[in-house]
């Protein structure tokens, strides 16, 4: 099967506009989706789930959310960690206040709460632009983390200041708490990833997405042709925070189970997700996944190679890890500033012409 659109005749506009215009991509997409949903859950064990798959899925959601804001709407945000914390703490409060509520509602509701908070912190974006805005979003980061640390209502007055997820199940299957099976964690996150990626894809190619991109490319020009900057920017902040809130909720309930806010949702998390978006590719759904996969995989690979294979002390590996991550980020920015998504696009262009490139 050759990788090209020749012979694949579209007979309707809907078909002409589909996400994967090439048949090979379409089949590939379904194969991966089915494999991820049907095959992987039977093979996954605790190590794979907790060190690779679950963090990858959750970070993919967060990266999708941040990509909507930074990549599609052009508003640089460094408040991701704070917004993830909002998602986590609203999940916790909902789970403890309404024990009968099922986990889907809890997670989606915490996304909605984060969306409201995000839109509120997005208000200054109407006046402040560029780097000034990036630094202004740090206000959200530090203020929110401080808030969750200081106001004991948020962690139900527990002595340690930590929050830990009680056991909750979906359709009789445990998805949170320490006794959860690896495959249940994985599948629960996968459902959110698939649905949210679909939502993101369709939002970004519709009216809303086009407005965001108009704002990104030049906000004054966009305003002149009739895009309302208030609605476009705030909707981008809200949708992005919705995604990030869900990611934060899942990060706490499903992945970690117990969270100390300053450690888990600090400024480092904001940078990590921003790196995923930049390395993956700004303004690309595929890029969000690629960036998340890359940065989740990298430390694990480095640890396996450094500690297990070369037998170096862990502290040296930790420092080397920093050097390599930093070096790779610079390397990627120099070689391909548009990220992994651009490499993928180029590969596809080449594949289309292969084996007769002239």
């Amino acid at each position: 099967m050759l990788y090209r659109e020749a012979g694949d005749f579209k007979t309707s506009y809907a078909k002409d506009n589909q996400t994967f215009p090439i048949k090979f991509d379409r089949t590939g997409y379904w194969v991966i989706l089915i494999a991820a949903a049907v095959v992987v859950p039977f093979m996954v064990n605790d190590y794979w789930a907790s060190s690779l798959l679950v963090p990858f899925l959750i970070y993919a959601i967060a990266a999708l959310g941040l990509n909507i804001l930074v990549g599609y709407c052009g508003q640089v945000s460094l408040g991701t960690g704070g917004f993830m914390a909002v998602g986590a703490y609203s999940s916790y409060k909902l789970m403890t206040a309404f024990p009968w509520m099922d986990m889907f509602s809890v997670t989606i509701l915490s996304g909605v709460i984060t969306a409201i908070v995000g839109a509120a912190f997005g208000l200054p974006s109407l006046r402040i632009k560029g780097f000034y805005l990036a630094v202004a979003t740090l206000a959200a980061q530090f203020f929110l983390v401080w808030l969750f640390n200081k106001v004991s209502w948020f962690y139900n007055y527990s002595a340690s200041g930590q929050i830990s997820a009680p056991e909750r199940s979906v359709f009789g299957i445990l998805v949170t708490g320490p006794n959860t099976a690896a495959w249940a964690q994985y599948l629960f996150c996968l459902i959110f990833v698939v649905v949210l990626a679909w939502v993101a894809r369709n939002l970004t190619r519709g009216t809303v997405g086009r407005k965001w991109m108009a704002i990104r490319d030049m906000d004054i020009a966009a305003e002149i042709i009739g895009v309302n900057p208030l609605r476009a920017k705030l909707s981008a902040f809200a949708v992005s925070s919705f995604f990030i809130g869900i990611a934060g909720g899942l990060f706490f309930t499903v992945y970690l189970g117990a969270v100390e806010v300053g450690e888990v949702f600090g400024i480092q998390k904001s940078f990590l997700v921003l790196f995923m978006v930049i390395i993956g590719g700004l303004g690309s759904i595929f890029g969000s996944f690629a960036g998340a996969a890359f940065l989740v995989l990298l430390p694990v690979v480095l640890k396996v190679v450094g500690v297990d294979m070369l037998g170096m002390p862990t502290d040296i590996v930790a420092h080397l890890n920093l050097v390599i991550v930093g070096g790779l980020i610079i390397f990627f920015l120099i070689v391909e500033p548009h990220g992994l998504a651009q490499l993928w696009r180029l590969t596809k262009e080449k594949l289309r012409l292969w084996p007769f490139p002239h």
Partner: protein
Amino acid sequence: MPDQLLFGMEVALNGLMAGVMYSLVALGFVLIFKASGIFNYAQGVMALFAAMTLVGIQNGQVPFAHLINATLGTDIHNFGWTVPALAAILLTVVVMAIFAWLVNKFVFSHLVNQEPIILFMATIGLAYFLEGVADLMWGSEIKTLDVGLPQGINDWLETTTFDAVGYGFFIDNLDIVATIIAALLVLGLILFSQYTKQGRALRAVADDHQAALSVGISLNFIWVLVWSIAGFVALVAGIMWGAKSGVQFSLSLIALKALPVLMLGGFTSIPGAIIGGLIIGVGEKLFEFAIGAPYLGGATENWFAYVLALIFLVFRPQGLFGEKIIERV
């Protein structure tokens, strides 16, 4: 005068001193941003790296000792000599200049004409890289930095104020020295940029890259120069903060403290960095003293500066002294 008011004045004075420290870091940001349009997130880590290098050179530590020992199985730690403070500072300046050259050679000369956000991300990558290198080179344990700066409380000020108003002001000697050094540094920078050939070239580049290039100013040289100066400023900031609270990872976080200062003062203004630093320093100490500690449970210093800058920016988006943002379609 009532005690509360005097106490508040002391807090404000201490805030002023802390503000000087913030200004020192913010100054490095402004220098690089003006000359090359790069928002250098690595400034804080540069301060950490400079301070660690200074301590390492002073104590005659072998660079990368831990790594060498781990890979080659040797057991070396020290050269067995100590270097006097002044010589160590000069050597560190040389190291920072080499670092500036390397950064331009291997990173930013490849990123010419990229978007600002890409350059910003590159400096975050640089921050990670430099932090890892610093830890590998000199070890990550907390070090004490001693270059002979006076420590402790200023007795003279305390007794004088006690005699005058019946309440002794507690001011750290180190803070006073830091203020004097910061003032000298700014004075030196102003003289340098006004009265030397390189300084004028630097201002020309900051004004307009293309025009500077067309009159024969080497952009590469200016960028290396400005990164070296920023490295020097980072060293000064690193010495001050290091002498105050030890050389450790948290030193690199002062970059985050400098960001609201920059927002307040404007990214392109040196006086803005100074005044912004003072406002933030006084503001956050007074807020913590008057509202934060009694009513909000304390530790408001973490976010107050940002919120202040945020509110301020809503009314004046380019900061206090920043260039007016003019947008055209």
